[in-house]
């Protein structure tokens, strides 16, 4: 009995070895990487002096020491967003705000991208990506990302990415609760939650594949 099991195990092992070494078919066409959105929670943009930089290719925050490089694509400080372009940095990033639903934007537009200039940033804040409620509506004095607005950017390296800003507050809280409306119990602001879909192959295809 023991010998039969040992035999079977040996057979199985050899078959497995065969299987993994038989990779002729794999070399013909490389499998496409699944494209899916990444979520970033609570990116700290509380500093009043320095921007918090982010790189979509790396999917991580970039240190301030690299501010004069092309390592970062987008910078956050309070409600201001800068792109590594024009007056904001040495890179050639650019961007625009597109109307629509994040999942449905399958193709980046061919033209219409702007860079940061002295007159205006490429991604406008008020009447751009957010609305400040002031005392006009409840919740008062809140920064609420506009619905149906998606940022389509070209990174510093010229790759396309679509970004949706979800929340400006720590922990992505629900904005229609009494707790949020009360300024005393509202979570801290200047913490960005956003999701993005980065296309590394340089095409304008921004459709998720899974």
């Amino acid at each position: 009995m023991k010998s039969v099991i040992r035999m079977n195990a040996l057979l199985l092992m050899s078959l497995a070895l065969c299987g993994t070494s038989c990779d002729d078919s794999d070399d013909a066409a490389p499998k496409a990487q699944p494209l899916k959105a990444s979520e970033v929670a609570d990116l700290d943009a509380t500093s009043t002096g320095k921007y918090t930089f982010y790189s979509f290719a790396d999917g991580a925050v970039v240190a301030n020491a690299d501010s004069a490089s092309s390592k970062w694509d987008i910078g956050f400080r309070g409600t201001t967003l800068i792109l590594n372009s024009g007056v904001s940095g040495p890179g050639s990033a650019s961007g625009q705000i597109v109307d629509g639903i994040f999942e449905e934007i399958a193709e980046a537009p061919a033209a219409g991208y702007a860079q940061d200039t002295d007159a205006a940033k490429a991604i406008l804040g008020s009447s751009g990506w957010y609305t400040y409620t002031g005392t006009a509506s409840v919740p008062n004095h809140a920064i609420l990302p506009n619905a149906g607005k998606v940022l389509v950017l070209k990174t510093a390296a010229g790759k396309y990415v679509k970004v949706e800003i979800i929340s400006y507050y720590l922990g992505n809280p629900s904005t229609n609760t009494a707790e949020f409306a009360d300024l005393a119990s509202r979570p801290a602001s200047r913490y960005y939650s956003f999701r993005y879909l980065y296309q590394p192959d340089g095409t304008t295809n921004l459709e998720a594949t899974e």
Partner: protein
Amino acid sequence: MIRYFRLCWLTILVAYSLDIHNATGQDSIATKNLDAVIVTATRSERTLSELPVPVTVVQGEQIRSMGSLRLNDVLAEQTGMAIVTDHGTGVQLQGFSPEYTLILVDGEPLIGRTSGTLDLTRIAVGNIKQIEIMKGPSSSLYGSEALAGVINIITDRPSGTNGNVTARYGTNETWDLGGTLNYTKSKFGLYVFGNHYRTGGYDFSPEAEGQTVSPFSNSTFQSRVTYGLSERTRISLSGRYFYEKQENSTNVGTTTDPVVVNGTGDIKDWNINPVITHKFTDKLKTTFRFYGTQYSTNSLLTYRQDGGTYDATYFDQTFYRPEVQAEYFFNERNALSLGVGRIWESVEATRYDDKMKYQTNYVYAQYEWQPLKKLNLLAGARFDDHSAYGSQVSPKLSVQYDVVKSLAVRASYGKGFKAPDFRQLYLNFTNSTVGYTVLGSKTVEDGILQLQEQGQIQAMLADPSTFGDIKAESSSAYNFGFKLNPFQRLTANLNFFRNDVTDLIDTKAVALKTNGQQVFSYYNIAEVYMQGLEADVAYVFNTGLALSAGYQYLDAKDKAVVKQLEAGTVYARDPGTNLTRRVTKGEYGGLLNRSKNMANAKLFYEHAETGWSATTRIIYRGRYGISDTNNNNILDADSEYVDGYATVNVSVAKTFGRWLRLQVGCDNIFDYTNKTYIPSLPGRLVWGSVGLTFGGRKSSEK
């Protein structure tokens, strides 16, 4: 049917010296309404039951049992009407804002809409014989502003020789003192009415400077003289004077650094209305009317600290109109009515450089035809030619078919319009703090030239050839309904309506200024529709006890928003995940401040022998949208609505003989308030009144 016209004419002649509505409780409210004689539908007397047009009549007796003081109190309890506050207390009819309903007193329009709304608190109710409410576009007879409908307040005529004094006191230090005087002698009749109303207002936020409703007082004086020159000629002269004074104070600074400003304001309006009716022959009757009126307001706001002026504004409007109307009764089944008139109107106000003057010439025609005994037709059209904007043709066609004695079917089609008002035509205003400019359609061309010369224009955003191209707002409406009277105790009305409103005027940016702000002007932009159904039932239990109930369903939406929703371009953030999602057509709540459901139920009791009477009324207003909070510019989320609510009003009265009447009442007995969102709804109001009648008996009583 034509027989009735002549009968009614005679009835009215007799009614000048009788008081036909002041009968005892024997007549039910239901049958009284069917036999009521109304003037609004055709600009001459007709019985309600013969008209192919739905008209709601509120009898003066009902107003007295309700204990209402001002017109807004009466209209708040009628089916399909909501009282809204926007630069004044106005009435919303079939979903239309107050500026689209014409308010008439004895067939002549009340003026004084500084921002579109006619403030209904200006109208006392102590001298009202009946209120006739005709819904649906009526510009075929009345011209501008009769889009949603017409509310015609018929005042008392001289009747017998008698007098009446009433005093009332209630919550919020509200006083109402009124008196009427009647004197008739053979062909001459005199009617005088006076009223003084004052209130201390109320305050929902005691910690803030100033009250929610500031104290104010007003006085009304109205009189009418009638003289029967001959059997064929009658002359009537009526006049009205109204004066109101208000004081308030507000904090224009901040809570930590208050700057208090005291305000005083006054309103004056008067009108004069001579009318001569002459019957040339039995078939031809003519009416000559002249109406002159003026409305003016003055407001001064001064700093409490040093008395310096903060803001001083004034507004002055005049309106003069002679009109000739001729009615010819071909035979019992055909009648033609023709009218022609001219209006001279002027407005003078702060922020307008010159006195604005315009004239309108108009002519209207109306044909009543009864081709079959069961079929009634009413066709009319009016042509208005205004000096400041294009001319307007307003047709109307109404049909009624009596299927059986207890069932009639009604249908009508009509067009209504509202002329661009003086702001939309002549405004020339620059906001000194923010820097934007608004120009009316007649001042935009010169205004832009001036700004260009000053070098203030950075870029043009609109085609200059479109300047000055403004039209009246207009609507087309279809109405279809049933009138049921299965047995004498029960009457019911069901009406479906659909209004398509086009060319609604709104502002649009025409140029970009060098300071980054924009120049706006008025254009015909928006399109909305209001549709729904209205049902009214009245049931008489026995002599003296009547129940009535009403319901309105309203669907009012902006057509551009509906198109956007169908295209899938309206989004909202899901409150749970904060991710964007598409808003569906079904989530769109429609226009703000309109309730989908409104209902009322009323019980009226009267016992003539003992002199006791009582009323109980429940008014329900369904939830309505107040503002956009999820910032997608449309009404969709639940948080954007104000809760629906019901108010219950009761009153009890006892008359002693003919000379004394005591009445007590309580409005909003359950004290419903919504201090944040409905500051115009005061809590519970308790009141009591004493009325004395003196003088000779009225001819109708034994």
